[in-house]
């Protein structure tokens, strides 16, 4: 396959250094200790899920990795970068709400990052068109967010995140606001997308099944103060689809393990 046509996901340039490292990270907001002494390590193109009760500091950890926040103590390293600015340059972040710009159509929303890189509006649109195709959104280029269903909007939000061409993707409960059918559909779709174009991924979720489906390690956190209880490696057989995987005994076993860890964490 020849490249230069722009038909690829913008290639995440391989940089020296590896994945993500958190060393003894503490984050305080005044009196509140949001994260107390977290250590994490994720290799390049590894996939990590973080689960835990709400308020345990999951979003805070994600913000610190992304470079939107700095830790109070400790070190956050993303592909060797430690300053906020350098981390921001390496990470794309996507929250629960799609936050699409209502005055831009699908292609215009997807093209935002490219335009921010100084590429002209027209060229940026052209470059994302092929991505739109890949994301199963062809025919929707000119639709505006208010014309799309919740699932479609979130898909566009994923597309906008991916189009930034970052090596590190940070998702904060991206399926949280969707109904269960749409959520299952998007989980399957994200799994496949990440297999086709591997990225270093951290996914925060409430949902144990989702954590197992999308992560190859699952980090369990507990609240007050937020800390890491355990890191579980996910080793599951290759299956055709999501439903088969969920039915698998090995999956059930891991799910039980995580649920019991969460009960302790509450």
């Amino acid at each position, binding site marked *: 396959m020849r490249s230069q046509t722009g038909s690829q996901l913008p290639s995440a340039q391989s940089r020296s250094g590896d994945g993500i490292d958190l060393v003894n990270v503490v984050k305080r907001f005044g009196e509140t200790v949001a994260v107390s002494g977290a250590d994490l390590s994720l290799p390049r193109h590894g996939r990590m899920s973080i689960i835990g009760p709400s308020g345990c500091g999951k979003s805070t950890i994600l*913000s610190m990795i*992304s*470079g*939107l926040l700095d830790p109070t103590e400790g070190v956050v390293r993303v592909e060797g970068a430690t300053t906020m600015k350098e981390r*921001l*340059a390496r*990470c*794309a*972040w*996507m*929250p629960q*709400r799609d*936050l699409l*710009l*209502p*005055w831009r159509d699908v292609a215009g929303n997807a093209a*935002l*990052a490219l*335009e*921010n*890189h100084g590429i002209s509006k027209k060229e940026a649109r052209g470059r994302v068109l092929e991505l739109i195709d890949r994301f*199963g*959104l062809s*025919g*929707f280029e000119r*639709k*505006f967010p*208010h*014309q799309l*269903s919740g*699932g*479609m909007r979130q898909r566009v939000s994923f597309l*906008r*995140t991916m189009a*930034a061409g*970052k090596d590190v993707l*940070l998702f904060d409960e991206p399926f949280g606001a969707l109904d269960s059918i*749409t959520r299952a*559909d998007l989980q399957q779709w994200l799994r496949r997308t990440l297999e086709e174009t591997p990225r270093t991924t951290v996914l925060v979720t409430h949902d144990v099944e989702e954590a197992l489906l999308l992560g190859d390690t699952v980090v369990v956190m507990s609240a007050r103060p937020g800390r890491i209880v355990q890191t579980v490696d996910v080793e599951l057989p290759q299956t055709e689809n999501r439903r088969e995987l969920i039915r698998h005994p090995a999956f059930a076993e891991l799910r039980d393990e995580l649920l019991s860890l969460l009960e302790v964490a509450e």
Partner: protein
Amino acid sequence: MTLAETIRSSRTKAPTPGERQTRRQQRLTAVVKRILPPTGILLLVGVLWQVASDSFGVPKYILPSLSDIWTSASERWSDTFSSATRVTLQEVLIGFAFAIVVGVVIALALHLSATLRTAFMPLLIGSQAVPIVVIAPVLAIIFGYTLMPKVIVVALICFFSIVVNTMHGLSSVDPELIKVMRTLDASRWAILRRVEIPAALPSFFTGLRISATYASVGAVFGEFAGSLDGLGYVMIQATSQLQTDMVFVAIFILTFMSISLFLAVSIVERLVCPWARKEDRR
């Protein structure tokens, strides 16, 4: 991609001619529903006015009948009202444009700099406490009977609601969206240009609509303080000669001017930010 396909097929279906027909009809009834009530009320008021002035023998210099007003409008249009309307309209439009430019510049500056905001906000609010009625004569002394003092009065009356509403719009952007933009490598300028300014447009237009209704009042104030032509000038002359019908003609023209400006702003708004209405309807 089964989900995508179902949604796609249901969405991209073209409307049949029949559907199009009913849609057009619905739109027509919607327009009629909006226009009918205000027209009815206006007609009712007009009839009552005419009956009252005809049958109760109210003197013409207190309440002229509508037909008297119409007569004086048509008789005095060419020698008085056409030029007065032109003069006042010019003051209103130039003053309004001036207010938009100044208002937007101030709103952007105060939005971008917290220091400027704390420094100038009290002054800005204070400026609204100064009565225009007092400022207008001072301006007339400084600039004479020229266009300038009227333009300044119109702009002074109009710019505040533009500043306040635009600033509100600029700062109403979801902080989480700003964070998303930062991880999409947006500079401060890119965030302003691609997110904050478009997001502020609906509020900006709200500010414009409010000040559009004030603008003609400003022009009249300006003319009261010293002028040689314009609808305010005509009103002053007519009042002193007990030509109340002339005053009413001027009032009607001013009202028409305000409503037209208001509608013009609304139409531009609809063209510039069509998404705003659609988002609301969701």
